[in-house]
């Protein structure tokens, strides 16, 4: 049944969204959107290196993302530039380096648009296996470090004082980010990975009354966006990545309408937060 390219894309996309949602919540909570952007832009450099060294693309992207996040943490510690300037520098130099490298590789014929905006045609059964195995591993690890990671998100000092080792949780989180970016690249493309991480989480925020609930909703909203976006992409012959992001945006906007208010009443036990009155 996975012979159909469209079905393969759907299965792969939903798999990615289910992982991206919970992780995206932490990106929203910790205000790491720009950090996510930096990593995903660096993914293109990973693609170039994969062609150059003739290694697996997903693996290469993962390695580059990990290297960039370690580099970033090191540079931040030295504190010579502000965080956002550093991120901008790394994001765009990695993207530019990737593009220049790819241009030099004149002997390989690659579809650059596919890497930038996602390419549903490129999803193979092997990709699906990688996405689901990697995704399951990411979710399992995330569940394992959930408490220290969430406590450190609320207050690093509190988590540290009460013996939760937030630094280890943060380091593992970086690892998970790199994994998810490597997994999502084929579906939404380098330029829009952060959107897949952030928009479902932002939409879920309006519906959720607890962090765990928000993570689940973000996963579901992301999956819906993938399904809607891919059908739209097929129907209107648009690139898959942008179509998925547009669908996610539509869901986010839907959450702000009376429909969202209704859903909220339905999902939160206290009638939409408050409760203090």
């Amino acid at each position, binding site marked *: 049944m996975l012979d159909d390219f469209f079905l393969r894309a759907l299965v792969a996309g939903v798999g990615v969204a289910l992982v991206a949602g919970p992780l995206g919540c932490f990106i929203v909570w910790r205000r790491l959107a720009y950090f996510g952007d930096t990593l995903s832009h660096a993914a293109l450099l990973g693609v170039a290196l994969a062609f150059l060294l003739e290694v697996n693309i997903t693996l290469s992207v993962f390695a580059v993302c990990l290297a960039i996040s370690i580099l970033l943490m090191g540079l931040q510690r030295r504190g010579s530039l502000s965080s956002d300037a550093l991120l901008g520098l790394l994001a765009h130099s990695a993207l530019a380096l990737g593009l220049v490298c790819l241009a030099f590789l004149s002997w390989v014929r690659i579809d650059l648009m596919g890497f930038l905006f996602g390419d549903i045609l490129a999803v193979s059964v092997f990709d699906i296996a990688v996405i689901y195995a990697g995704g399951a591993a990411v979710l399992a690890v995330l569940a394992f470090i959930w408490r220290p990671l969430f406590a450190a998100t*609320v207050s690093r000092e*509190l988590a*540290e004082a009460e013996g939760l080792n937030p630094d280890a949780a943060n380091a593992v989180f970086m690892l998970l980010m790199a994994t998810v970016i490597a997994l999502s690249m084929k579906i939404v493309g380098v330029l829009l990975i952060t959107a897949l991480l952030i928009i479902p989480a932002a939409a879920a925020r309006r519906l959720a009354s*607890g*962090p765990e609930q928000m993570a689940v909703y973000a996963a579901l909203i992301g999956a819906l966006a993938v399904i809607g976006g891919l059908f739209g992409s097929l129907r209107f012959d648009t690139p898959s990545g942008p179509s998925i992001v547009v669908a996610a945006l539509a869901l986010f906007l839907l959450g702000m309408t009376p429909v969202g208010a209704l859903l909220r009443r339905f999902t939160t036990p206290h009638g939409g*937060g*408050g409760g*203090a009155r």
Partner: protein
Amino acid sequence: MTLAAAARAGAGAPPLVRLENAGLYRDGRWLVRGVDLTVARGEIVTLIGPNGSGKSTSAKMALGIARPDEGAAHRAPGLKVGYVPQKLAIDWTLPLTVDRLMRLTGPLPAGAAHEALERTGVAHLVGAEVRHLSGGEFQRALLARAIARKPDLLVLDEPVQGVDFSGESALYELISAIRAELGCGILLISHDLHVVMSATDHVICLNGHVCCTGAPSAVAGSAAYQQLFGGRANAALAVYEHHHDHVHLADGRVRHADGSITDHCHPADGHHHHGHAHAEGAAETDEAGHA
């Protein structure tokens, strides 16, 4: 006092946490330096001092959040800590109810969260989102979270900030009661001198270094303390009786009740815990040492 005395009597028991000459250096200056403090089971130790005097920094070194750049910090192995930080901002993107906040750093037995919230007077807010709480309500929830863990060591950094006047004393009474119930050690940071003086076993007065230290009545009488807190100090002082068991002589040495004279009165030598007074102008200050 009796619990603390008992804790002191069992001198064999190691303290929960101990700072030895600890100091933290940041951005070209010492935030605090030369801090010696111990908190034993059943004891309330309070840090007082003006803004920027290193109270929170000292507490963070004791907690292990900040590693001292000089000196050392020791914590008892397996120490269970409850911490109320001075500042905690909850981002609006975080959907966090009071109930979830209670379980932030570890699971709680059934009913423990409710019981603790009841005691701090905010049980009715259990389902409320944290960002909708008032400053005082949030402080109460944070205190409830810390005590619900049944910790060995409670570290409370200005735990009653934003709490209304009548609520303050009730919360301090609660803190004393918790100490008696759990037998935990408490490291308290407070601005409220009256409370510090009435509910504390041991006071450490900071101003970038340890200015004076000892039982509340003794510290209240010291010149260094008077200098730091001025008129307010006298008002607080009037409430307390004095037991002088040793005197700081004009040359900086200390004469104890038994007639012996020593060069210093170190917090660990035991003399301080029975209260002492400083002779005018010769309080246990050590400005010169850290100037």
